[in-house]
Structure formats: structure tokens, C-alpha cells
């Protein structure tokens, strides 16, 4: 649908529409947490906890949305468009698929990819005793296990999870503020999600020693159904705008050792006007110079 057919009637609406236009440097993705028609206590709690971790850039819907994303994704697309959020997590529970989570993302308000996960061994944020990290901390993400590189579905899951949990894109980070780490470990088709609080301990050197404390939420995930974007669409979605790419610096190259090498282009030199070292012996009118006169005198006297 072409934008701008319906003209905004208020300045506020105009500003909102402008903020939602495609941009070269994009804003942080927002995420939706959607409860399906039927949810178990576990699934509701998972949605709540993950919402708490993602809070400023997330919305948790109060009401249920009776839809099945793998059968018809239009309602998810609609919700994501209306809320200007491109990440979603959908929770449901049924006999066939108990404690079900669907995590996915959209591109241009069209579904890009989504993966269905089963939740087991859930440990909520509340049930784990101890200190929690501050609200809206950017977590460190760790992916462990060779399966994230060998398995196609898990590779895409890694991309989705990175997108989902990485938080805002920032330029500076406060070193003391790094206090949350989420680890995903893939083993035998299962993914273990563990969330820890980081404690920075003195090591005697400048770099601190790191100790971890269990913080929760923790869960074991199994991959169920998947919907993966076609290569074409994915490539299109990953394209970087020209304006966002760093400008190429001409004639300057470097190598891994950090040496900088430059190439200079010059106009051809005029060798006729070249300034050379002045040597007396090379002077043109030799007879006029003092030394020449002296030698002539000496020759005459002898």
C-alpha cells in the first residue's frame, strides 16, 4: 500500500507517521508479546519474564489473541504493523504442543521468519532467589555449541535470538553496567537458555575476574515447526543502504598489523628547473671564479 493516501489530520498523527517511515539508520526494533487462545502458567510466566527483560522496547498484550501463526500469519502481521514492532513472541498451550512459544520477526510488516519452540524445565525470574540486574540493561549474549554453525534451523534461530535479545544499539557502554548475560547452548537439538547476573571481582590486574550468579529466567527449548524466509527475501531484508555504509577512503590502505599505507599521485616533474647541489667545479664560467684565477696565476709563475 502506497503511503500518504490518507492524509494525517493532526500534527501528532503526522509526527507518528513520519517516525514510522523507512529510515537509513533504523530505530531499535520493538517487540510484541502475544498470548494465544490458551496458555499454560509456564507460557504466561515466560512471556512476562522476557517482557520484563526487554521492557522499554516491548509491549505485552493484556488480552488474548486467538490465532495460529503457522496456519495464518496475517493477524500477527497486522498487529506488528499497527504497533510498529517487528519482533514478536507468541505463547500458547495445547495437548499436541504443550508450552509453546513462537518467536519471529517481520520485515516491511510482512512475516520474515519464525520458529516454534517448546519450553521445558522452566525457572522463572521470581523463583530464583538473589539479586536481579537493573531494568533495561543491555545483556551480553553467548552462543555455545557447534550446532549453531552446522544446523540450518539453529543458525537462523541464533540470528532471531540475537535480534530479539540484543537490546538497543549503542555507541558507548558503561563498564560497571555490564551485569547481565544470556547464554544459549545447543546440544542434541535442544537449546538451553540460561540467564546470569555478572559480578565483577578484583583480579589484581586492570581486567576484573568475572563470577556469575544464577538470575533466571532459565528454560530448555526444543525446536518444533519453523518458517524460514526464502533466500531472496532474506537477502533483500539484510541489504544495507548506501548512505549507511562507511565512505571508502581512496589511496589509503592498511594491513592486520596496523600499518597505514598511503599512495600519492603527483604531476610529472620538470627536470630542467631541478635544484641540485651547488659545486664550484660545475660552475659554467670557470675563468671568473677566484680559485680559477689563482690556479692560472700559479701556472704562469711556474
Amino acid at each position, binding site marked *: 500500500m*502506497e503511503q*500518504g*493516501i490518507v492524509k494525517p489530520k493532526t500534527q501528532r498523527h503526522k509526527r507518528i507517521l513520519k517516525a514510522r*517511515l*523507512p*529510515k*537509513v539508520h*533504523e*530505530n531499535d*526494533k520493538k517487540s510484541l508479546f502475544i498470548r494465544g487462545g490458551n496458555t499454560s502458567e509456564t507460557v504466561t510466566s515466560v512471556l512476562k519474564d522476557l517482557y520484563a527483560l526487554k521492557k522499554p522496547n516491548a509491549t505485552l498484550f493484556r488480552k488474548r489473541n486467538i490465532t495460529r501463526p503457522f496456519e495464518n500469519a496475517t493477524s500477527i502481521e497486522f498487529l506488528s504493523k499497527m504497533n510498529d514492532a*517487528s519482533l514478536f513472541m507468541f505463547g500458547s498451550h495445547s495437548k499436541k504442543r504443550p508450552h509453546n512459544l513462537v518467536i519471529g520477526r517481520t*520485515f*516491511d510488516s510482512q512475516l*520474515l521468519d519464525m520458529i516454534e519452540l517448546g519450553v521445558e524445565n522452566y525457572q522463572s525470574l521470581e523463583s530464583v532467589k538473589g539479586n536481579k540486574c537493573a531494568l533495561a540493561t543491555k*545483556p*551480553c*549474549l*553467548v*552462543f*555455545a*555449541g*557447534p550446532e*549453531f*554453525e552446522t544446523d540450518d534451523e539453529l543458525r537462523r534461530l541464533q*540470528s532471531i535470538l*540475537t*535480534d530479539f535479545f*540484543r537490546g538497543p544499539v*549503542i*555507541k*558507548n*557502554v*558503561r*563498564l*560497571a553496567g*555490564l551485569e547481565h*548475560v544470556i*547464554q544459549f*547452548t545447543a*546440544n542434541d537439538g535442544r537449546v*538451553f537458555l*540460561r540467564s*546470569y547476573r*555478572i559480578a565483577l571481582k578484583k*583480579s*589484581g*590486574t*586492570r*581486567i576484573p*575476574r*568475572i*563470577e*556469575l550468579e*544464577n538470575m533466571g529466567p532459565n528454560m530448555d527449548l526444543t525446536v518444533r515447526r519453523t518458517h524460514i524466509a526464502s533466500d531472496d527475501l*532474506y537477502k*533483500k*531484508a*539484510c*541489504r544495507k*543502504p548506501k548512505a549507511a555504509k562507511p565512505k571508502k577512503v581512496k589511496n589509503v590502505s592498511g594491513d592486520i598489523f596496523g600499518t597505514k599505507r598511503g599512495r600519492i599521485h603527483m604531476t610529472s616533474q620538470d627536470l630542467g628547473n631541478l635544484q641540485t647541489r651547488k659545486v664550484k667545479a660545475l660552475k659554467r664560467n670557470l675563468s671568473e671564479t677566484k680559485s680559477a684565477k689563482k690556479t692560472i696565476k700559479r701556472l704562469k709563475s711556474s
Partner: protein
Amino acid sequence: MGVKAQDILENIRKDEEERIKSTTVEKDIDVNLDLGNLLAVDSNPLDAIKLRRSKESYLMQLARGNTQLLLNNIWQLETERVEDAVVAKLPDPETRLPREKPIPKSKPPTKWEEYAKVKGIRNRKKGRMVWDDVTKSWKPRWGYQRGNDDTKEWVLEVPKNANPNEDQFEKKMKEKKERVAKNELQRLRNIARRSGKKVPGTGLTNLPNKQQSTQELEATFHQAKRSTASLGRFENNLRNEKPAKNQGKKRKFDPVIMISEKDRQMKIVNEMFKKNPKMDVNKAVNQEINQTTVRKHKPGKNGKGQKGGKKFGGKGKGKKR
């Protein structure tokens, strides 16, 4: 004394080693780090036995190692002091993640913008305030309490040859409304043009630099041809012109009076049962011509002579006398 000093030195050395040890982590395969995203990807194989025996402690130990590696690298980055906090400058994220929305495209010019460019018309900035002669003050050019407001006049002059009963106020309002409507229509038409869609009533309004297909060109051509006062009835045909495709056909009805149902049916039946064959003049003439030529070129003296003649001519196919 000497022995003690040696012990102390030894202790210091051990301490130093332990300190360095406490922050170093060794991995067989290097962990991939993306500092911009605070992301570490460890592709080392997992220890299956430990994972089975003591899952939680193994996972935590694994996480500790990887986090230590990640933070070691973050601590190496350039740091700054901002209001009592040490801040590290992160590099740009490296991991390729899909965008939320497509890359913005530049808006193609509207029809007016195109025209203005050709004519060299440029927008002039007008001041926001105008001088109002009636109140002797500066007032906004438009909007609430605008100056020189011509919508609030209480009397209007009736033009000389206008209908005296016509309401000039109403006429003025109507004209304004029409101008607004026209502007809106043109705005929508520009949007349609931008998205390459058909605009009802005007056919295709493609952008000038967009290539049209032969079909589209033909449709436009026939539309232009029909767009005369006499609906194209007196337009000359071009040399290789093709008739317009998919043009609406005029419906033809049988006359209601004069011919009865029975006559119509009888006409069809008569046509079907007619015995005497119809003569197709064109076909007959063609057949006749064909037969005479075949007779002429029957192999014989004449044919041989021709063959010989051809040989003389050689290969040249374009040879003419």
C-alpha cells in the same frame, strides 16, 4: 635473611601468575566476538559427559569462560570518563541482521515539480506575517485571525453581466471547494503515478523515464486517437497500424418488428439445407493460376535450358539484370 627474600619473591611470582590466570580462558577454537552487540559465539564442542552429570554447573562454567573472554576484549577498548562513570566506546555491530523496513527510496517528482523544473520556476519564500491595512497591524498570512481575510467580507460586488439573482457568496464558496477538490485529485493522481498504477479516466500516467511495453504504448496510442471531438472517426490510419485490442464492442440487436421468429429460424434452416455449392471467386482464381504455372514448368526442354542458365549465374543471390 637471604632465603626469606627468595621465598617472598617466589610468592610474588606465584601471585602474579594466579592473577593473570584468573582472567584468562583457554579455548581450542577462537570464540567469535561481536563487541558492538556484546555477542560471543563459541563453536567449541561441548563436553557431553559433564553436561549429562552436572548440567547446571557445567553451563554456568561455560558461560563464565565465554563472558570473561567477552569482557576481557571490552576492557581493551578505548575508554572515556563521563560523569563519574568509565565508559567504553563500542565498535559498530558486525553481525548481519535483517532490517525492520526496506531501504528508503527517493520520491519521484510530481507532475508540477517536473513542469516547474522545465520552466525554471522556483519556490519563493513568503513571510509568515502580512500587513493588514484595516486593523493597521501585522497578522498571520493564513490560519486563525489571518490578515486581509477575503472570506469574511460582508459585501460582494455583482459583476456587470452576471445574473442578478445569483448568490455571489455561495458562488465564491463553491469555487473554493472545487479548487480544493482538484488539488486533492491531483495529489492522489501523483501517488498513483508514483506507484505505477492505472488512473481511472486518464489511462496510464507513467513516470517519464519509465519504459512502456508495446501493449501499453498501443493502448495509449488508441486512446489518444479516440480523444477527438468526433471520437476519432475522421482520423487517418497509419501504414502498419493494428486495430485496437479489447475495445468495447457496440451491441447489435435484431430488429423487433418486421421480422418474425419463424422467419429468422427459417433463414438458418434454408442456409443449412442449401445443396448448390457456393463459389469462392478468390479461391477459384488462385487455383487456376496455380495450375497454369505448373503446366508451364513441367520438366522438358524448357526446364533443362533454365537449369543451365542458372549455373552461369553462379552463387550470387542478389544478382539482377
